[in-house]
């Protein structure tokens, strides 16, 4: 059994198995990853780093692709959903 990682998504504690993406962690806390230019909720579309709908802030760094980033222990993730 792989290790369990602990992250906070908008302050909510979530657990994911090692190897999971940040997107998988965010999906455990919320359905909306970001708001579009006109305020519509958005979430990953392509799952492979193309559509940029999964952008979140990780440890204070804005506009990071959640689907392309491996989850790490203690990450603080902010969505703008």
């Amino acid at each position: 059994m792989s290790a369990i990682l602990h992250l906070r998504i908008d302050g909510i504690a979530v657990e994911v198995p090692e190897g999971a993406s940040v997107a998988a962690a965010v999906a455990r806390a919320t359905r909306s990853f970001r708001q579009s230019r006109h305020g519509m909720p958005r979430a990953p579309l392509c799952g492979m780093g193309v559509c940029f709908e999964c952008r979140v802030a990780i440890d204070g760094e804005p506009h990071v692709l959640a689907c392309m980033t491996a989850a790490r222990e203690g990450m603080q993730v902010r969505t703008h959903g």
Partner: protein
Amino acid sequence: MAEGCEVLVIGAGPAGLAAAATAAANGARVALLDAQPRAGGQVWRHDIAHGASRRARRALRRIAPVKRHFGMRVVAADPGARTLLAEDSLHAREFGWDRLVLAAGARELFLPFPGWTLPGVTGAGGLQALVKQGWPVAGRRVVVAGSGPLLLAAAASLRAHGARVLAIVEQAARDDVHAFARKLWHWPDKLAQAARLRMALAGVPIRYGAVVRRASGDSHLQTIDIDCDGRVETFECEYLAIGFGLVPDTGLARMLGCGLNDATHPAIRVDALQRTTVDGIHAAGECCGIGGMQTASIEGAIAGHAAAGNEAGARALLPSRDRARRFADALAHTFAPGPCVRMLADDTTIVCRCEDVTWGELRSFDDARAAKLATRCGMGPCQGRICGAALAELLGWSWHGHPRQPLFPARLSTLAFDSLATFP
């Protein structure tokens, strides 16, 4: 200062892995770059619940002698200097090459329809990719829709992760799909694969000649309406995984000056030895035209041989490559998006998701440039990859001029050739 190597391979999917392994086996000093944190590309993306397939494990073992740079995204190219600029989460690095192999793969084609921007609507391959890296779908209701055998593969994979697949909605007509299935005996391995998928999907209804008209929900997906022979059927579901096939990724090739073909979604033009129109640059796999994993592996090996100067080795593989390409052509013909899926968007449907530009705002323009200037369509962070392919399909607009740098959004420090660590 650029890091040098003899053969530089971009993309670590089946084509890139084969190219890197083959070039290395020919004695070349090889480096392999991929934007994803792990090798495998899309089809061999590492599945944290189920591990890698035997075939993928074998391919990964063969790149042992190759210098690997994963999580490293190419953002700019200087064809004159033969260097690429890439970044990871912290560093900017330049890579030089004697021979370059482009194996950038493909992305999904999305066609806008009402509600497609709701959370819960994903690509068919997209949801599959997310799920392999731990996205939770166990017990969730999913409808898989669009066109092509990728739908079956995605549905089987989602089911294996515990999703309740309610239906597969295929826009191709039943007769066309069955006629295609009858031809499968030409490719026995495909026949076996189809049989395995059929078993994995036992009990899942398939609607042929059917399209998703609308996705609905307040802040996320709740229901979809599908149109099957004029009859509307509604499903309650948490996910709609939808894909209309793949489009070749040609951004880096264009930046390097490689010629493309004149398809609706152009692919990199290559000769029999996978040489592009630019001296010293080869290309292989989906970026040369959608052909599937088998084709990509063979083309990667041809490119790897050719890039390492082993022309005889490359030529020996040509017959198997041609056979694999024939299958891909038959597939593309059967599952090409039909006219019905081109008329789904209404005037309020978002086409450019980055800038929230609607179909109504766009359809009166004559060409992409005029539309971009007036509406900023395609000017967001996806750089027109999603809406550009859709508008190429819907309006025949070309988005394939010389791409602007950076190829993907990049840190300003990277464009200044500095790593982030340099800055306070």
